[in-house]
């Protein structure tokens, strides 16, 4: 007999009931992306209110800058584990192909400040962000994604993961909203949840890169195949299935 959606749901519920620790990890990611979505909706509504549908992304960024600043700063104040937040616009076809980014970053000495990226494609330090995984995976598809762990060289130069969602203004995708979390802060958030698992438990990306785990045999950055280690896998839907919990 084919399982009906109801029975599949019931099975999921049963396995969840058996694994409250998976549920806790899953809730963390659901919450993280819900927070990003809230920020994104707020940013998009703001951009829509200050612009007209004919404005290109350069104009959008200029008109929206103060509002993006206010909202990103507020987000960073309310989310101490986030390191940076803002909007990365798709490069305008009619703006000499320069990058357009409104990004706010936490800094020990400067406080929350606007981060200046190299946005001139002809420059030595051009931040070629449309080739980075978070842009590729989220822009166009509109799916949530977690990229990392990676050192954002020429970007914020930190060891981070980036959570992304697509930004749509006047019915048109204009770029992506993102949140950076430093790997050390991600670990502080997730380690208590992973330590609830009775056996080995780890969070891995689609590339098999470990984000965090409850054992020294699996450390952030390591690449693994969970099945070969005898681990079961539970993809986290909220992350666009870019992250899986692997556990014994």
């Amino acid at each position, binding site marked *: 007999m084919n399982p009906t959606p109801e029975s599949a749901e019931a099975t999921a519920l049963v396995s969840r009931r058996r694994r409250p620790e998976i549920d806790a990890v899953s809730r963390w990611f659901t919450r993280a992306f819900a927070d990003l979505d809230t920020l994104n909706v707020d940013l998009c509504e703001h951009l829509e209110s200050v612009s007209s549908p004919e404005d290109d992304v350069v104009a959008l960024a200029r008109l929206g800058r103060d509002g993006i600043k206010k909202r990103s700063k507020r987000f960073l104040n309310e989310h101490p584990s986030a390191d940076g937040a803002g909007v990365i616009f798709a490069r305008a076809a009619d703006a000499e192909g320069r990058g357009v980014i409104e990004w706010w970053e936490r800094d020990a*000495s400067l406080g929350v400040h606007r981060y200046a990226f190299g946005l001139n494609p002809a420059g*030595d330090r051009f931040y070629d962000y449309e080739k980075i*995984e978070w842009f*590729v995976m989220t822009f166009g598809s509109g799916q949530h994604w977690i990229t990392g762990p*990676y050192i954002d060289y020429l970007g914020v130069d930190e060891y981070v993961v980036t959570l992304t969602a697509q930004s749509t203004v006047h019915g048109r995708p204009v770029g992506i909203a993102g949140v950076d979390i430093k790997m050390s802060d991600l670990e502080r958030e997730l380690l208590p949840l992973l330590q609830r698992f009775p056996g080995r438990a780890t969070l891995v990306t689609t590339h*098999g*890169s470990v984000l965090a785990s409850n054992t020294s045999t699996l450390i952030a950055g390591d690449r693994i195949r969970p099945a070969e280690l005898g681990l079961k896998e539970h993809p986290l839907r909220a992350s666009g299935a870019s992250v899986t919990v692997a556990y014994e």
Partner: protein
Amino acid sequence: MISTGNEHPAAPVAEDALQTGNGQAIADRITNSISLGLLAVGERLPPEIELAQQFGVAVATLRKGLAVLRERGIVVTHRGRSGGSFVVKAPFPSDAESASRLQGLSVVELRDLRDGSIAVGATTARLAAERAWDGSLARLRELATGVTSSATAATAASADSRFHIEVAVLAQSRRLMSAELGLQSEISPLVWAQGVFGSGVAEEIQEHHLAIVAAIAAGDGARAAQAMTEHITADVHRVIDAKLSLEAPTS
């Protein structure tokens, strides 16, 4: 790093002169970073505290270095809210400057530069092989061939440096990346200044880069480390040969 035109330092050095010397040394290192494109013209230098940490010196020493750079017309400093030090000129050492630098460095110092570069470079290559995923290698492949498509020694040096830094980025270690940035700012002007450009060595260097990329792409850490070790050894030995030929007695 020594300051140029200072091949015969006087034996006793007063505390004051030593301090100025440190300022000059840090100025030279920042200049090298700029020459390599790690800091671009028009760009604001990181805050003083951060920069001092990056170069491993006291803030006071760094300030002396910035003063030297202002005198040389390489940076300007603006005060106020949107202030800071900005790069306004990107110098690549002239042949005379690099000849003088090479004469000032002993073979033992160059060997030490090689040893340090191998320690960091081989480890970054091994870790990159273990940690990088396919999608993140496209950029490294592009950078591997940058040395032969560059029009000048300065841009080739910058491309070479970027390749090594990208390997460190893929290694996902901030400490190693920071060490690699420092090493590249020292090694790359030497490798590219000594008549390397246009003499076919760029092709050899590119071949080495491609061998490193192949090992990283194959996920073979041991082979990546080995390829990097051979590459750095060849680079530095060319520099040592250049130094020895500069100082060979003319008969």
